Protein backbone atom coordinates (compact mmCIF):
# COMPACT_ATOMS: atom_id res chain seq x y z
CA UNK A 1 0.00 0.00 0.00
CA UNK A 2 2.66 2.41 1.08
CA UNK A 3 4.71 1.53 -1.96
CA UNK A 4 1.74 2.03 -4.22
CA UNK A 5 0.94 5.41 -2.72
CA UNK A 6 4.52 6.42 -3.35
CA UNK A 7 4.13 5.34 -6.97
CA UNK A 8 1.01 7.40 -7.45
CA UNK A 9 2.66 10.38 -5.83
CA UNK A 10 5.64 10.03 -8.13
CA UNK A 11 3.40 9.74 -11.15
CA UNK A 12 1.28 12.77 -10.31
CA UNK A 13 4.47 14.61 -9.51
CA UNK A 14 5.84 13.69 -12.93
CA UNK A 15 2.63 14.73 -14.70
CA UNK A 16 2.73 18.04 -12.86
CA UNK A 17 6.32 18.56 -13.95
CA UNK A 18 5.44 17.61 -17.51
CA UNK A 19 2.54 20.09 -17.65
CA UNK A 20 4.71 22.76 -16.12
CA UNK A 21 7.42 22.16 -18.74
CA UNK A 22 5.04 21.84 -21.65
CA UNK A 23 4.90 25.48 -22.83
CA UNK A 24 8.70 25.63 -23.06
CA UNK A 25 8.87 22.23 -24.73
CA UNK A 26 6.31 23.30 -27.30
CA UNK A 27 8.34 26.42 -28.06
CA UNK A 28 11.35 24.19 -28.59
CA UNK A 29 9.38 21.69 -30.65
CA UNK A 30 8.17 24.50 -32.89
CA UNK A 31 11.76 25.56 -33.61
CA UNK A 32 12.84 21.95 -34.17
CA UNK A 33 10.09 21.44 -36.74
CA UNK A 34 10.81 24.81 -38.35
CA UNK A 35 14.52 24.02 -38.63
CA UNK A 36 13.79 20.57 -40.02
CA UNK A 37 11.41 21.61 -42.74
CA UNK A 38 13.11 24.77 -43.91
CA UNK A 39 16.48 23.00 -44.07
CA UNK A 40 14.93 20.06 -45.86
CA UNK A 41 13.22 22.29 -48.41
CA UNK A 42 16.17 24.62 -49.02
CA UNK A 43 18.46 21.58 -49.00
CA UNK A 44 16.30 19.96 -51.66
CA UNK A 45 16.56 22.98 -53.94
CA UNK A 46 20.31 23.21 -53.39
CA UNK A 47 20.67 19.44 -53.71
CA UNK A 48 18.79 19.44 -57.02
CA UNK A 49 21.00 22.17 -58.46
CA UNK A 50 24.15 20.41 -57.26
CA UNK A 51 23.05 17.02 -58.58
CA UNK A 52 22.07 18.43 -61.98
CA UNK A 53 25.31 20.39 -62.10
CA UNK A 54 27.29 17.27 -61.33
CA UNK A 55 25.55 15.07 -63.85
CA UNK A 56 24.87 17.46 -66.72
CA UNK A 57 27.25 20.37 -66.11
CA UNK A 58 30.40 20.97 -68.12
CA UNK A 59 33.69 20.04 -66.48
CA UNK A 60 34.04 23.24 -64.45
CA UNK A 61 30.49 23.33 -63.10
CA UNK A 62 30.53 19.62 -62.42
CA UNK A 63 33.84 20.04 -60.59
CA UNK A 64 32.59 22.91 -58.45
CA UNK A 65 29.49 20.93 -57.45
CA UNK A 66 31.56 17.85 -56.66
CA UNK A 67 33.99 19.95 -54.61
CA UNK A 68 31.22 21.55 -52.58
CA UNK A 69 29.62 18.17 -51.86
CA UNK A 70 32.94 16.67 -50.77
CA UNK A 71 33.83 19.57 -48.48
CA UNK A 72 30.44 19.59 -46.76
CA UNK A 73 30.29 15.83 -46.39
CA UNK A 74 33.87 15.66 -45.26
CA UNK A 75 33.59 18.10 -42.36
CA UNK A 76 31.48 17.98 -39.16
CA UNK A 77 28.19 19.84 -39.20
CA UNK A 78 29.20 21.41 -35.89
CA UNK A 79 32.33 22.92 -37.44
CA UNK A 80 30.23 24.27 -40.31
CA UNK A 81 27.82 25.88 -37.86
CA UNK A 82 30.71 27.41 -35.89
CA UNK A 83 32.15 28.91 -39.04
CA UNK A 84 28.81 30.43 -39.98
CA UNK A 85 27.89 31.64 -36.49
CA UNK A 86 31.27 32.65 -35.08
CA UNK A 87 33.38 33.02 -38.22
CA UNK A 88 31.10 35.11 -40.43
CA UNK A 89 30.90 38.03 -37.96
CA UNK A 90 34.68 38.40 -38.39
CA UNK A 91 33.98 39.00 -42.06
CA UNK A 92 31.36 41.57 -41.11
CA UNK A 93 28.32 39.30 -41.47
CA UNK A 94 26.51 38.87 -38.17
CA UNK A 95 23.68 36.38 -38.10
CA UNK A 96 20.95 35.60 -35.61
CA UNK A 97 21.40 32.13 -34.11
CA UNK A 98 18.29 30.81 -35.84
CA UNK A 99 19.31 32.22 -39.23
CA UNK A 100 22.81 30.82 -38.84
CA UNK A 101 21.40 27.41 -37.95
CA UNK A 102 19.00 27.45 -40.90
CA UNK A 103 21.79 28.36 -43.31
CA UNK A 104 24.15 25.78 -41.87
CA UNK A 105 21.64 22.95 -41.86
CA UNK A 106 20.40 23.79 -45.38
CA UNK A 107 23.90 23.96 -46.83
CA UNK A 108 24.71 20.68 -45.13
CA UNK A 109 21.54 18.86 -46.09
CA UNK A 110 21.90 20.12 -49.67
CA UNK A 111 25.17 18.24 -50.09
CA UNK A 112 23.68 14.97 -48.84
CA UNK A 113 20.50 15.35 -50.85
CA UNK A 114 22.60 16.09 -53.93
CA UNK A 115 24.20 12.68 -53.64
CA UNK A 116 20.88 10.86 -53.25
CA UNK A 117 19.50 12.71 -56.25
CA UNK A 118 22.60 12.13 -58.34
CA UNK A 119 22.30 8.41 -57.71
CA UNK A 120 18.65 8.49 -58.76
CA UNK A 121 19.31 10.54 -61.88
CA UNK A 122 22.10 8.21 -62.95
CA UNK A 123 19.96 5.15 -62.35
CA UNK A 124 17.63 6.22 -65.18
CA UNK A 125 18.71 4.61 -68.45
CA UNK A 126 20.40 7.17 -70.66
CA UNK A 127 18.22 6.00 -73.55
CA UNK A 128 15.28 7.95 -72.15
CA UNK A 129 17.23 11.18 -72.41
CA UNK A 130 18.25 10.27 -75.96
CA UNK A 131 14.62 9.50 -76.85
CA UNK A 132 13.45 12.81 -75.40
CA UNK A 133 16.08 14.67 -77.42
CA UNK A 134 15.11 12.75 -80.56
CA UNK A 135 11.58 14.15 -80.19
CA UNK A 136 12.92 17.69 -80.24
CA UNK A 137 12.99 18.37 -76.51
CA UNK A 138 15.77 20.62 -75.29
CA UNK A 139 18.00 19.20 -72.59
CA UNK A 140 16.24 21.32 -69.97
CA UNK A 141 12.80 20.17 -71.10
CA UNK A 142 13.95 16.57 -71.05
CA UNK A 143 15.36 16.95 -67.55
CA UNK A 144 12.18 18.58 -66.29
CA UNK A 145 9.64 16.31 -67.96
CA UNK A 146 11.41 12.99 -68.20
CA UNK A 147 14.35 12.72 -65.81
CA UNK A 148 13.24 14.59 -62.68
CA UNK A 149 9.76 13.07 -62.30
CA UNK A 150 11.46 9.68 -62.15
CA UNK A 151 14.55 10.69 -60.18
CA UNK A 152 12.49 12.40 -57.46
CA UNK A 153 10.28 9.37 -57.05
CA UNK A 154 13.28 7.06 -56.82
CA UNK A 155 14.79 9.40 -54.20
CA UNK A 156 11.85 9.30 -51.80
CA UNK A 157 13.18 6.49 -49.55
CA UNK A 158 16.59 8.15 -49.25
CA UNK A 159 14.86 11.45 -48.73
CA UNK A 160 12.82 10.00 -45.88
CA UNK A 161 16.13 9.01 -44.30
CA UNK A 162 17.40 12.56 -44.66
CA UNK A 163 14.27 13.93 -42.98
CA UNK A 164 14.74 11.62 -40.01
CA UNK A 165 18.40 12.56 -39.72
CA UNK A 166 17.52 16.23 -39.89
CA UNK A 167 14.91 16.06 -37.14
CA UNK A 168 17.65 14.91 -34.80
CA UNK A 169 20.54 16.90 -36.27
CA UNK A 170 18.66 20.12 -35.58
CA UNK A 171 19.54 19.54 -31.92
CA UNK A 172 23.10 20.59 -32.75
CA UNK A 173 21.74 24.11 -33.24
CA UNK A 174 21.49 24.29 -29.46
CA UNK A 175 25.26 24.80 -29.32
CA UNK A 176 24.89 28.11 -31.16
CA UNK A 177 22.13 29.29 -28.81
CA UNK A 178 19.06 28.25 -30.79
CA UNK A 179 16.43 27.22 -28.26
CA UNK A 180 15.03 24.22 -30.05
CA UNK A 181 13.70 21.16 -28.26
CA UNK A 182 16.96 19.83 -26.84
CA UNK A 183 18.07 23.29 -25.73
CA UNK A 184 14.79 23.83 -23.91
CA UNK A 185 15.24 20.47 -22.24
CA UNK A 186 18.72 21.36 -21.09
CA UNK A 187 17.37 24.65 -19.81
CA UNK A 188 14.56 23.03 -17.84
CA UNK A 189 16.93 20.37 -16.47
CA UNK A 190 19.41 22.99 -15.30
CA UNK A 191 16.65 24.65 -13.23
CA UNK A 192 14.86 21.58 -11.94
CA UNK A 193 17.74 19.06 -11.80
CA UNK A 194 15.32 16.47 -13.20
CA UNK A 195 17.60 15.28 -15.97
CA UNK A 196 16.24 11.78 -16.43
CA UNK A 197 12.59 12.85 -16.65
CA UNK A 198 13.09 15.75 -19.02
CA UNK A 199 15.40 13.96 -21.41
CA UNK A 200 13.14 10.92 -21.41
CA UNK A 201 10.26 13.19 -22.39
CA UNK A 202 12.37 14.77 -25.11
CA UNK A 203 13.50 11.42 -26.46
CA UNK A 204 9.89 10.34 -26.70
CA UNK A 205 8.93 13.55 -28.50
CA UNK A 206 11.69 12.93 -31.10
CA UNK A 207 10.55 9.35 -31.45
CA UNK A 208 6.93 10.33 -32.05
CA UNK A 209 8.04 13.03 -34.47
CA UNK A 210 10.14 10.69 -36.61
CA UNK A 211 7.38 8.09 -36.53
CA UNK A 212 4.82 10.58 -37.83
CA UNK A 213 7.17 11.87 -40.54
CA UNK A 214 8.03 8.36 -41.69
CA UNK A 215 4.37 7.47 -41.93
CA UNK A 216 3.60 10.60 -43.95
CA UNK A 217 6.43 9.96 -46.40
CA UNK A 218 5.48 6.31 -46.78
CA UNK A 219 2.00 7.40 -47.74
CA UNK A 220 3.29 10.00 -50.15
CA UNK A 221 5.54 7.39 -51.73
CA UNK A 222 2.66 4.98 -52.19
CA UNK A 223 0.46 7.69 -53.60
CA UNK A 224 3.06 8.80 -56.13
CA UNK A 225 4.21 5.30 -56.97
CA UNK A 226 4.25 4.17 -60.58
CA UNK A 227 4.50 0.54 -61.63
CA UNK A 228 8.09 -0.23 -62.55
CA UNK A 229 9.75 2.69 -60.78
CA UNK A 230 11.66 2.75 -57.48
CA UNK A 231 10.89 0.79 -54.33
CA UNK A 232 7.57 -0.48 -55.50
CA UNK A 233 9.35 -2.24 -58.33
CA UNK A 234 11.57 -4.05 -55.85
CA UNK A 235 8.52 -5.02 -53.80
CA UNK A 236 6.72 -6.38 -56.84
CA UNK A 237 9.75 -8.41 -57.79
CA UNK A 238 9.84 -9.99 -54.36
CA UNK A 239 6.33 -11.31 -54.79
CA UNK A 240 6.82 -12.63 -58.28
Amino acid at each position, binding site marked *: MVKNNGGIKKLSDFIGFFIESLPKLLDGLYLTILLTFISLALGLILGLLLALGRVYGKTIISGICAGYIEIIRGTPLLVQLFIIYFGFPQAGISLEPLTAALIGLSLNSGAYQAEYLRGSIQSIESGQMVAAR*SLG*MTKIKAIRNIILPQALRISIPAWSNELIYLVKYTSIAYIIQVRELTAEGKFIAAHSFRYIEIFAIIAIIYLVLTFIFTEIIDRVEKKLSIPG*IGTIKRLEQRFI
Partner: protein
Amino acid sequence: MNMLKVENIHKIYGKTKVLAGVSFTMEKGETKVIIGPSGTGKSTLLRCINQLSPPDKGRVWLEGIEVTDKKTDINLIRQKIGFVFQEFNLFNHLTAVKNVSIALEKVKKMEKEEAHKEAMNELKRVGLKDQADQYPSQLSGGQKQRVGIARALAMNPVIILFDEPTSALDPELIGDVLEVMKSLAGEISMLVVTHEMGFARNVADEIIFMEHGVIAECGNPDKMFKNPEKKRTKEFLGKISSLYGEE
Protein backbone atom coordinates in the same frame (compact mmCIF):
# COMPACT_ATOMS: atom_id res chain seq x y z
CA MET B 1 15.51 18.41 -104.31
CA ASN B 2 15.87 15.17 -102.40
CA MET B 3 13.84 14.80 -99.22
CA LEU B 4 16.92 13.51 -97.40
CA LYS B 5 20.45 13.93 -98.60
CA VAL B 6 23.38 12.46 -96.72
CA GLU B 7 26.79 13.47 -98.02
CA ASN B 8 30.17 12.01 -97.18
CA ILE B 9 29.53 11.29 -93.49
CA HIS B 10 32.57 10.48 -91.35
CA LYS B 11 32.48 9.53 -87.70
CA ILE B 12 35.35 8.54 -85.47
CA TYR B 13 35.07 7.18 -81.93
CA GLY B 14 38.44 7.44 -80.26
CA LYS B 15 40.72 5.70 -82.73
CA THR B 16 38.03 3.68 -84.45
CA LYS B 17 36.76 5.02 -87.73
CA VAL B 18 33.10 4.02 -87.60
CA LEU B 19 31.90 5.82 -90.71
CA ALA B 20 34.26 6.57 -93.56
CA GLY B 21 32.30 8.59 -96.08
CA VAL B 22 28.69 7.55 -96.47
CA SER B 23 26.46 9.24 -99.03
CA PHE B 24 22.93 8.48 -100.21
CA THR B 25 19.60 10.19 -100.83
CA MET B 26 15.98 9.40 -100.08
CA GLU B 27 12.72 10.55 -101.60
CA LYS B 28 9.33 11.09 -100.02
CA GLY B 29 7.55 7.84 -99.15
CA GLU B 30 10.58 5.67 -99.82
CA THR B 31 11.59 2.78 -97.59
CA LYS B 32 15.28 1.96 -97.41
CA VAL B 33 16.77 -0.85 -95.40
CA ILE B 34 20.35 -0.78 -94.18
CA ILE B 35 21.98 -4.13 -93.60
CA GLY B 36 25.49 -5.18 -92.76
CA PRO B 37 27.61 -6.92 -90.14
CA SER B 38 27.54 -5.50 -86.62
CA GLY B 39 30.03 -2.75 -85.90
CA THR B 40 29.85 -1.29 -89.39
CA GLY B 41 28.31 1.97 -88.23
CA LYS B 42 24.68 1.42 -89.23
CA SER B 43 23.27 2.74 -85.96
CA THR B 44 25.86 5.49 -85.87
CA LEU B 45 24.76 6.58 -89.32
CA LEU B 46 21.16 6.96 -88.10
CA ARG B 47 22.36 8.99 -85.11
CA CYS B 48 24.42 11.20 -87.40
CA ILE B 49 21.34 12.02 -89.45
CA ASN B 50 19.38 13.56 -86.55
CA GLN B 51 22.56 14.75 -84.82
CA LEU B 52 22.15 12.59 -81.72
CA SER B 53 25.82 12.02 -82.41
CA PRO B 54 26.97 14.72 -84.80
CA PRO B 55 29.25 13.52 -87.61
CA ASP B 56 32.91 14.61 -87.61
CA LYS B 57 32.72 15.40 -91.28
CA GLY B 58 30.02 15.49 -93.93
CA ARG B 59 26.63 17.09 -94.30
CA VAL B 60 22.97 16.17 -94.03
CA TRP B 61 19.99 17.95 -95.60
CA LEU B 62 16.34 17.40 -94.81
CA GLU B 63 13.84 18.99 -97.20
CA GLY B 64 16.55 21.36 -98.36
CA ILE B 65 17.54 22.52 -94.87
CA GLU B 66 21.06 21.67 -93.80
CA VAL B 67 20.72 19.68 -90.60
CA THR B 68 24.45 19.75 -89.91
CA ASP B 69 24.59 23.54 -90.08
CA LYS B 70 25.35 24.89 -86.60
CA LYS B 71 22.84 27.68 -87.17
CA THR B 72 19.95 25.28 -87.82
CA ASP B 73 17.67 24.80 -84.82
CA ILE B 74 18.21 21.10 -84.31
CA ASN B 75 15.24 20.74 -81.97
CA LEU B 76 12.99 21.92 -84.79
CA ILE B 77 14.54 19.50 -87.28
CA ARG B 78 14.31 16.55 -84.88
CA GLN B 79 10.53 16.97 -84.72
CA LYS B 80 10.50 16.01 -88.39
CA ILE B 81 12.77 12.99 -87.93
CA GLY B 82 11.16 10.19 -85.94
CA PHE B 83 13.47 7.75 -84.21
CA VAL B 84 12.61 4.24 -83.07
CA PHE B 85 15.14 2.59 -80.79
CA GLN B 86 16.27 -0.99 -80.41
CA GLU B 87 15.74 -0.75 -76.64
CA PHE B 88 12.42 1.16 -77.03
CA ASN B 89 13.53 3.87 -74.58
CA LEU B 90 10.01 4.57 -73.41
CA PHE B 91 9.50 7.03 -70.58
CA ASN B 92 8.94 4.73 -67.62
CA HIS B 93 6.92 7.14 -65.51
CA LEU B 94 4.32 7.77 -68.19
CA THR B 95 1.46 5.64 -69.45
CA ALA B 96 1.49 4.50 -73.08
CA VAL B 97 -0.73 7.37 -74.17
CA LYS B 98 1.32 9.93 -72.21
CA ASN B 99 4.49 8.56 -73.77
CA VAL B 100 3.00 9.49 -77.12
CA SER B 101 1.46 12.82 -76.10
CA ILE B 102 4.22 14.32 -73.96
CA ALA B 103 6.23 15.71 -76.86
CA LEU B 104 3.04 17.03 -78.48
CA GLU B 105 2.36 18.97 -75.29
CA LYS B 106 5.86 20.04 -74.38
CA VAL B 107 7.46 20.46 -77.81
CA LYS B 108 4.58 21.18 -80.17
CA LYS B 109 2.71 23.11 -77.46
CA MET B 110 -0.59 21.39 -78.14
CA GLU B 111 -3.43 21.62 -75.64
CA LYS B 112 -3.65 18.64 -73.30
CA GLU B 113 -6.93 17.30 -74.71
CA GLU B 114 -5.84 17.74 -78.28
CA ALA B 115 -2.53 16.00 -77.60
CA HIS B 116 -4.36 13.17 -75.86
CA LYS B 117 -6.73 12.74 -78.78
CA GLU B 118 -3.88 12.73 -81.25
CA ALA B 119 -1.95 10.24 -79.14
CA MET B 120 -4.96 7.93 -78.93
CA ASN B 121 -5.23 8.01 -82.71
CA GLU B 122 -1.62 6.94 -83.06
CA LEU B 123 -2.07 4.17 -80.50
CA LYS B 124 -5.07 2.92 -82.47
CA ARG B 125 -2.93 2.95 -85.59
CA VAL B 126 -0.42 0.59 -83.96
CA GLY B 127 -3.16 -1.54 -82.41
CA LEU B 128 -2.71 -0.50 -78.78
CA LYS B 129 -5.87 1.41 -77.98
CA ASP B 130 -6.65 -0.90 -75.05
CA GLN B 131 -3.20 -0.51 -73.52
CA ALA B 132 -3.33 3.30 -73.46
CA ASP B 133 -3.32 3.57 -69.67
CA GLN B 134 -0.66 0.97 -68.99
CA TYR B 135 2.84 1.85 -67.89
CA PRO B 136 5.84 0.55 -69.85
CA SER B 137 6.62 -2.02 -67.16
CA GLN B 138 3.19 -3.53 -67.78
CA LEU B 139 3.67 -3.92 -71.54
CA SER B 140 5.34 -6.70 -73.51
CA GLY B 141 8.40 -5.91 -75.61
CA GLY B 142 6.38 -5.87 -78.83
CA GLN B 143 3.82 -3.53 -77.30
CA LYS B 144 6.58 -1.26 -76.00
CA GLN B 145 8.09 -1.02 -79.45
CA ARG B 146 4.72 -0.21 -80.99
CA VAL B 147 4.30 2.58 -78.43
CA GLY B 148 7.76 3.72 -79.54
CA ILE B 149 6.56 3.82 -83.14
CA ALA B 150 3.35 5.66 -82.15
CA ARG B 151 5.46 8.18 -80.23
CA ALA B 152 7.53 8.85 -83.34
CA LEU B 153 4.46 8.99 -85.62
CA ALA B 154 2.61 11.47 -83.41
CA MET B 155 5.11 14.20 -84.20
CA ASN B 156 4.05 13.88 -87.81
CA PRO B 157 7.62 13.44 -89.08
CA VAL B 158 8.64 13.31 -92.74
CA ILE B 159 10.91 10.35 -92.07
CA ILE B 160 11.31 7.75 -89.34
CA LEU B 161 14.66 6.16 -88.57
CA PHE B 162 14.40 2.63 -87.16
CA ASP B 163 17.45 1.36 -85.30
CA GLU B 164 17.14 -2.44 -85.20
CA PRO B 165 13.54 -2.17 -84.00
CA THR B 166 13.00 -5.92 -83.55
CA SER B 167 16.42 -7.03 -82.32
CA ALA B 168 15.51 -6.86 -78.62
CA LEU B 169 12.23 -8.74 -79.08
CA ASP B 170 11.29 -12.35 -78.49
CA PRO B 171 10.75 -14.03 -81.87
CA GLU B 172 6.99 -14.38 -81.42
CA LEU B 173 6.64 -10.64 -80.78
CA ILE B 174 8.52 -9.49 -83.87
CA GLY B 175 5.60 -10.06 -86.24
CA ASP B 176 3.33 -7.41 -84.73
CA VAL B 177 6.02 -4.76 -84.96
CA LEU B 178 6.88 -5.64 -88.55
CA GLU B 179 3.18 -5.56 -89.46
CA VAL B 180 2.91 -2.01 -88.16
CA MET B 181 6.04 -1.00 -90.06
CA LYS B 182 4.73 -2.56 -93.26
CA SER B 183 1.49 -0.63 -92.88
CA LEU B 184 3.48 2.60 -92.82
CA ALA B 185 5.44 1.85 -95.98
CA GLY B 186 4.68 4.34 -98.71
CA GLU B 187 2.87 6.72 -96.33
CA ILE B 188 6.00 7.89 -94.66
CA SER B 189 9.68 7.61 -95.48
CA MET B 190 11.45 4.95 -93.48
CA LEU B 191 15.14 4.25 -93.06
CA VAL B 192 15.45 0.94 -91.29
CA VAL B 193 18.49 -0.80 -89.86
CA THR B 194 17.46 -4.43 -89.49
CA HIS B 195 18.37 -8.07 -89.94
CA GLU B 196 14.80 -8.97 -90.90
CA MET B 197 15.37 -10.15 -94.44
CA GLY B 198 11.68 -10.79 -95.06
CA PHE B 199 10.94 -7.16 -94.37
CA ALA B 200 13.90 -6.02 -96.47
CA ARG B 201 12.86 -8.15 -99.40
CA ASN B 202 9.15 -7.38 -99.37
CA VAL B 203 8.95 -3.80 -98.18
CA ALA B 204 12.17 -2.01 -99.05
CA ASP B 205 12.52 0.06 -102.19
CA GLU B 206 16.23 -0.18 -101.81
CA ILE B 207 18.65 -2.18 -99.71
CA ILE B 208 21.89 -0.60 -98.61
CA PHE B 209 24.65 -3.02 -97.68
CA MET B 210 27.19 -1.40 -95.39
CA GLU B 211 30.56 -2.75 -94.36
CA HIS B 212 33.61 -1.17 -92.72
CA GLY B 213 31.93 2.21 -92.43
CA VAL B 214 31.04 2.60 -96.11
CA ILE B 215 28.24 1.56 -98.42
CA ALA B 216 29.54 -1.59 -100.10
CA GLU B 217 26.61 -2.03 -102.42
CA CYS B 218 23.05 -0.89 -102.82
CA GLY B 219 20.12 -1.62 -105.06
CA ASN B 220 16.56 -2.87 -105.15
CA PRO B 221 15.77 -6.10 -103.26
CA ASP B 222 15.52 -8.15 -106.45
CA LYS B 223 19.00 -7.25 -107.57
CA MET B 224 20.50 -7.52 -104.11
CA PHE B 225 19.05 -10.95 -103.38
CA LYS B 226 19.38 -12.44 -106.84
CA ASN B 227 22.29 -10.78 -108.62
CA PRO B 228 24.45 -8.83 -106.25
CA GLU B 229 27.51 -7.33 -107.92
CA LYS B 230 29.82 -8.18 -105.09
CA LYS B 231 30.64 -11.57 -103.73
CA ARG B 232 30.66 -10.17 -100.20
CA THR B 233 27.04 -8.98 -100.51
CA LYS B 234 25.94 -12.40 -101.63
CA GLU B 235 27.84 -14.05 -98.79
CA PHE B 236 26.33 -11.77 -96.16
CA LEU B 237 22.78 -12.00 -97.48
CA GLY B 238 23.06 -15.77 -97.67
CA LYS B 239 24.27 -16.04 -94.11
CA ILE B 240 21.67 -13.64 -92.70
CA SER B 241 18.80 -15.14 -94.68
CA SER B 242 19.52 -18.62 -93.36
CA LEU B 243 19.71 -17.20 -89.84
CA TYR B 244 16.66 -14.95 -89.86
CA GLY B 245 14.53 -16.55 -92.56
CA GLU B 246 13.04 -14.80 -95.50
CA GLU B 247 9.55 -14.26 -94.13
